[in-house]
């Protein structure tokens, strides 16, 4: 079996007719399909931008190009980290791969936090909601769908990260099952709670909608404590222990996930230009 080979050629899988691994082919076919999916959504948005209802909300009164540029940059960096993660696992470097996965996830979470922040300002300060204007309708649906894709990506990354600790010898039975669950909780707990705190922090700094710096720690005590505990859990569960069932052979899993992640990134490249930048002309 190819799995026992000393070196694995990641561009050739001898067990398939074309040499392309099944999972990779599946992913590319899916991405071709996803193109159409976003194509339809972006078309909807652009068509309604071509024919806006009179007296609707103007995008320039709402958009914040600095924030969007920042999150675009962040997503780009996450793409880089993802590429590095694939690179690492292809060479069997599990540790490096894990770190890259975590960073990717972290950047993804920042992007999501930016989006949460953006949506909140748009709704509360700029009074653009999903139902009060056509712009809101198409904007929130399009970027929200993209956000969902990012969120699914983050979820997938987290699952992959935790999966990389699967013990090699199958020891433990139900115990492993329990540890896995705990690990998932710790990772996503850290992520979500940190995101929440950071958003609160920024809102307070900006004095957004009645938020104030004073008393932030008090208000968010539980969040902070929870995040710290979860973070501790992450470290503890990630301590080195025995051989794991995660190596070059699983590179294809990471790679497929990477394809998805990069695709989400290129969709954002298009959205950034078509939805945001073009409005500034």
């Amino acid at each position, binding site marked *: 079996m190819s799995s026992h080979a000393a070196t694995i050629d990641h561009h050739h899988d001898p067990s398939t007719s074309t040499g392309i691994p099944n999972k990779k082919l599946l992913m590319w076919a899916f991405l071709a399909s996803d*193109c159409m999916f976003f194509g339809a959504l972006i078309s909807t948005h652009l068509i309604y931008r071509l024919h806006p209802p009179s007296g609707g909300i103007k995008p320039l009164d709402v958009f914040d190009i600095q924030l969007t540029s920042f999150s675009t940059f962040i997503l780009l960096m996450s793409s880089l980290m993802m*590429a590095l993660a694939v*690179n690492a696992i292809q060479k069997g470097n599990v540790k490096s791969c894990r770190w890259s996965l975590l960073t990717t996830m972290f950047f993804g979470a920042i992007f999501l936090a930016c989006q949460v922040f953006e949506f909140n300002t748009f709704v509360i300060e700029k009074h653009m909601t999903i139902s009060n204007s056509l712009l809101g309708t198409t904007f929130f649906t399009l970027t929200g769908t993209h956000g969902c894709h990012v969120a699914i990506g983050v979820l997938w990354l987290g699952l992959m990260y935790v999966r990389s600790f699967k013990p090699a010898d199958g020891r433990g039975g139900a115990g492993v099952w329990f540890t896995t669950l705990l690990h998932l909780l710790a990772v996503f707990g850290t992520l979500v709670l940190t995101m929440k705190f950071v958003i609160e922090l920024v809102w307070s700094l900006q004095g957004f909608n009645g938020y104030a710096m004073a008393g932030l720690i008090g208000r968010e005590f539980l969040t902070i404590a929870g995040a710290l505990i979860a973070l501790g859990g992450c470290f503890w569960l990630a301590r080195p222990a025995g051989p794991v069932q995660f190596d070059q052979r699983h590179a294809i899993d990471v790679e497929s996930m990477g394809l998805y992640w990069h695709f989400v990134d*290129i969709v954002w490249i298009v959205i950034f230009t078509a939805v945001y930048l073009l409005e500034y002309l």
Partner: protein
Amino acid sequence: MSSASATLPAHDAGHHDESKFPLYVQIAMLLAVITGVEIIAVYLPFAKWILVTTLVGLSTVKFMFVIFYFMHLRWDKPFCTILFFIGLVLTAGTMWALLTLFSVENAIPLPT
């Protein structure tokens, strides 16, 4: 089955060993720079059509860099590229057709 990969000439399997790390970082930097240029471009006082063309062009460049390098299309079997481009081309065509259909005079919505 494993024999196929084991007997590959060393330099062929080699491109895995020389790390792509620097390449990836360089591309990421390039992408960041292009994004920066785009953001600045929209504030420049050029004719609209020039700017739109530039923006579309630059985004396409970014798009291509990501799919060919980060997503390995450059090193993969060409079939992957074909597969993806079937979707991409059909999407682009459909989007173009839709936008055109909605730009003709008959499509202008009634004044409200």
